[in-house]
């Protein structure tokens, strides 16, 4: 298969370009926060990265809950003035979000790209990977991202601003976010990988951050997108997914009952893509619009990525067959298989 006709290859190129731009692009756009592209990116590009070209929208949200809305509530000030910065950030986020919808996760997010690259590394090392997580586990994990969004992005920062909790809970999500550690390390800055003894709050938050960073690295080698499943950005996207121009659309046929290849291909283990037979818009809350389900759907036009109702990529048996072959070849060529074949050739033939 021509790699330039392979959606996964195209996506990988976009992801790597986006990674380089958002992690190192500050050298082009500028060093200061005023130089950043939007300041409300719908992807985990970290403001702690001094070479970054943009920063994720979760940072201003936490900051505004703490220092604007929370302080306005505590001080009996004008609530509308306290809320205005959050509304401006939300507006900026939505302007961007409308263009790509949840594809910011599947195509742009540096942390998502990192996890995918690690998974590819696991494949190439010949590590035994789990194709899909247990559906019970997947369903149990789904509320976690909502809890993190409500508590760590909005709840605790707001309570900090009001004065109910200590200031170290003013930006709790940033303090545990693996992207903060990853993107700073990627620029050669190790200052964000630390255990903070200042008080119990900082100790607990830094313990969680470091442990989760290590956990994510190890799990990514064998499990697809482990952190993404609990990411509050995914939850924030889910709230506004009906506004995005890019959608995953399903034209179900009775054959969908028997196949299930789409769910198997999904890196987020969304089994509903396979089982949903009524709804046409199947951009589920965990979907990252990566398009893998469309790639691995063998039936013509059953799954489609549509942009403003115009199909931009559709399931097609003519694409599916070479794509499946290419995937098989990709998975077979691992370090372990090379070592095994080398070992086999070195073995003396027995008469």
């Amino acid at each position, binding site marked *: 298969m021509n790699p330039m006709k392979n959606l996964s290859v195209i996506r990988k190129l976009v992801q790597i370009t986006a990674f380089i731009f958002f992690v190192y692009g500050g050298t082009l756009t500028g*060093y*200061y926060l*005023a130089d950043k592209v939007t300041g409300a990116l719908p992807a985990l590009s970290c403001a702690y990265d001094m070479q970054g070209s943009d920063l994720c929208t979760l940072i201003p949200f936490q900051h505004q809950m703490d220092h604007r809305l929370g302080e306005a509530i505590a001080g009996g000030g004008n609530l509308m003035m306290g809320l205005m910065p959050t509304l401006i950030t939300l507006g900026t986020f939505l302007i961007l979000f409308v263009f790509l919808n949840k594809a910011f996760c599947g195509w742009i997010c540096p942390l998502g790209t990192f996890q995918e690259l690690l998974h590819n590394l696991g494949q190439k090392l010949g590590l035994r990977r*789990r194709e899909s997580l247990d559906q019970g586990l997947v369903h149990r994990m789904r509320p976690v991202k909502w809890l993190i969004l409500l508590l760590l992005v909005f709840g605790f920062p707001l309570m900090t601003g009001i004065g109910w909790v200590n200031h170290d809970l003013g930006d709790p999500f940033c303090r545990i976010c693996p992207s903060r550690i990853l993107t700073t390390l990627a620029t050669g800055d190790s200052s964000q990988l630390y255990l*903070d*003894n*200042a008080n119990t709050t900082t100790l607990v938050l830094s313990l969680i951050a*470091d442990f989760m*960073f*290590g956990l994510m690295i190890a799990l990514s080698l064998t499990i697809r997108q482990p952190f993404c499943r609990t990411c509050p950005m995914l939850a924030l996207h889910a709230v506004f997914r009906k506004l995005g121009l890019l959608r995953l659309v399903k034209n179900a046929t009775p054959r969908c009952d028997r196949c299930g290849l789409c769910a198997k291909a999904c890196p987020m283990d969304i089994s509903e893509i396979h089982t949903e037979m009524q709804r046409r818009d199947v951009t589920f809350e965990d979907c990252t619009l990566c398009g893998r389900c469309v790639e691995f759907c063998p039936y013509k036009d059953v799954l489609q990525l549509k942009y403003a109702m115009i199909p931009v990529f559709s399931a097609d048996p003519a694409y599916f067959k070479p794509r499946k072959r290419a995937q098989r070849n990709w998975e077979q060529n691992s370090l372990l298989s090379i070592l095994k074949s080398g070992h086999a050739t070195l073995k003396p033939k027995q008469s």
Partner: protein
Amino acid sequence: MNANIYPAAFVLMFCFMMPAPDVVAQTAAKPGSGPEHTAEQHRRGPKKIALTDSKGAVARLWKPDLTTLPLTVEHGNITLPRTGVDNYHAVVVEKDRVDLKEVLIRYEYMHGKPSGHSTSELTAAEKTPFEIVPDPVPREHQHYRSDQRWRFFLRFKGTPAAGIPVTLETSHGTRVNAVSDSEGEFSLHIPDDFPDLKEGERDKRTAEFSISAETKDNGILYRTMLSAEYRVNPSHWQSSGLGVAVTGFGMLAGVLLGSIGLTETKRKAR
């Protein structure tokens, strides 16, 4: 160009900047005797600057859009007015005599509506003939901290000033020297000189440093100073080694979780 340094002899000197209610209680900070104060979160009150000798001083406030406001010096104090604009502003205080031109510059973050201008525009603007320019100014939510190295450059009449000795002096009395290179650039290590630091305990104290240089041109002596606040380096209560160790434990847990999962998968397959 003359390159003798007498930073202690500077007539013009910033004490420190604080919200207005606090500054009244403070005394003039000279190197070695500087008061320390706790870094409050998001100080939003009007800021005041105290000058040790304000006679003949002319002060201006450079906004992020490079427009300037005249500042009034009253009884040796300058109160910075709210500009309603977010981002760094530059306070420039000058004393101009026939044979001596002195200037003191300080970059201060002020809160308000987004300015839409980068701080790089403010640092690039020629605010005075002889100027120490931070390269870069600490970004929002970043601060000068002890035990850190920062870059600066010297600019004289719009061109890099090479080979000029510069001195950093902290309010704790520590002095560090450097010389600007052919591009006018130099870097300085901010000393870790907060007294009575307790390892493992967070310390929110702040102190002041000033960087000074002088040069002579056409019989006129130019003295310049850049002042700023610095804080205690968090490495005193943050451990990188333990951070790496905890990350290692996380990786180990990930490997174990992955292998348990694989065993379950294999069992199910059987």
